[in-house]
C-alpha cells in the first residue's frame, strides 16, 4: 500500500492524500510522458522529475498508484491542487530516483 511506502521511506505527502490506500505493484521511472503512457504498468509507482500539472492526468490515464518527485524538487501549486482533486498521491523525497528504487526493492523483500 502507498501509505506504508510513505511511512517506511519517510516520504512527504504533498497532495492526493485520498489515494494513500492505493496498492502498488512495481516502479516505473521516466520523465518522458509518452513513454510513461506507453510503458507504465497499471498500479506502478511513477518516479519523475516533472512537476507541472500535466503529470496528474498522465498518472491517472496510465493508472499509476502514486507519483514520487525525487531530490526535493519544487512542485507547482496547480499540480498539488489537481492531485488533491483527483486523489492521486503526490509524494516527495530528498533521495534520487535510483536510491528510491533501491529502497522500494528493500521494502518489498521485508513484506
Amino acid at each position, binding site marked *: 500500500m502507498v501509505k506504508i511506502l510513505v511511512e517506511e521511506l519517510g516520504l512527504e505527502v504533498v497532495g492526493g492524500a485520498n489515494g494513500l490506500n492505493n496498492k502498488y505493484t512495481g516502479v516505473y521511472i521516466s520523465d*518522458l*510522458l*509518452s513513454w510513461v503512457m*506507453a510503458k507504465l504498468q497499471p498500479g506502478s509507482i511513477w518516479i519523475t522529475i*516533472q512537476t507541472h*500539472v500535466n503529470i496528474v492526468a498522465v498518472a491517472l*490515464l496510465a*493508472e499509476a498508484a502514486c507519483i514520487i518527485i525525487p531530490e526535493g524538487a519544487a512542485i507547482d501549486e*496547480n499540480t498539488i491542487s489537481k492531485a488533491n482533486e483527483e486523489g492521486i498521491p503526490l509524494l516527495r523525497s530528498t533521495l534520487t530516483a535510483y536510491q528510491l528504487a533501491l529502497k522500494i526493492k528493500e521494502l518489498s523483500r521485508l513484506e
Partner: protein
Amino acid sequence: MENIKISFDIIQHDFSKAGEASSNIKKVLKQLGIPSDTVRKAAVATYEAEMNIIIHSEGGVIELTVDVDKVKVVAKDKGPGIKDISLAMKEGYSTATSEIRELGFGAGMGLPNMKRCSDCFDIQSSESSPTIVTMIIYLKKAND
C-alpha cells in the same frame, strides 16, 4: 447498449486543460462497464491525440462514439497539417520545441502509441490542411 456520442473542443496551447478530454472519455467508458484494458488503451490513445492537437495544431475537436461492438475516437483539427505522414509516424520523430520537450512532451512516440493502442488506426493529413486521426478499438464479447 445505446449509441453514445460525445465531443470535446481542444484549444491550441492550452496546457492547463490538457488531458481533460481523455480523462472524461476514460470516466465515461468506465461507467459503461467496458473492460479495463480497453478503457486504458482508449485513454492512452486519446491523450496522445489530445496533446497533438494542443501542441502541434491550431485547435480542434475530439469525438467519442461508443456502440455495441466498438469504441471510436476521432481527433480532427484546423491545421496546419502534416507534410510527411510516414516520417511523423516514426518513433522518436518530433518537431516539438525545446520548451515543450523540457515539459516531457515531444518524445515522438504519440502517433506510434495511438497506433499500438488501436485495432484500427487511420491518419489523414497534408500540408496546410486539417489532420484527422481515427482510432477504433473493438469490444470483445465475454465468450469470445
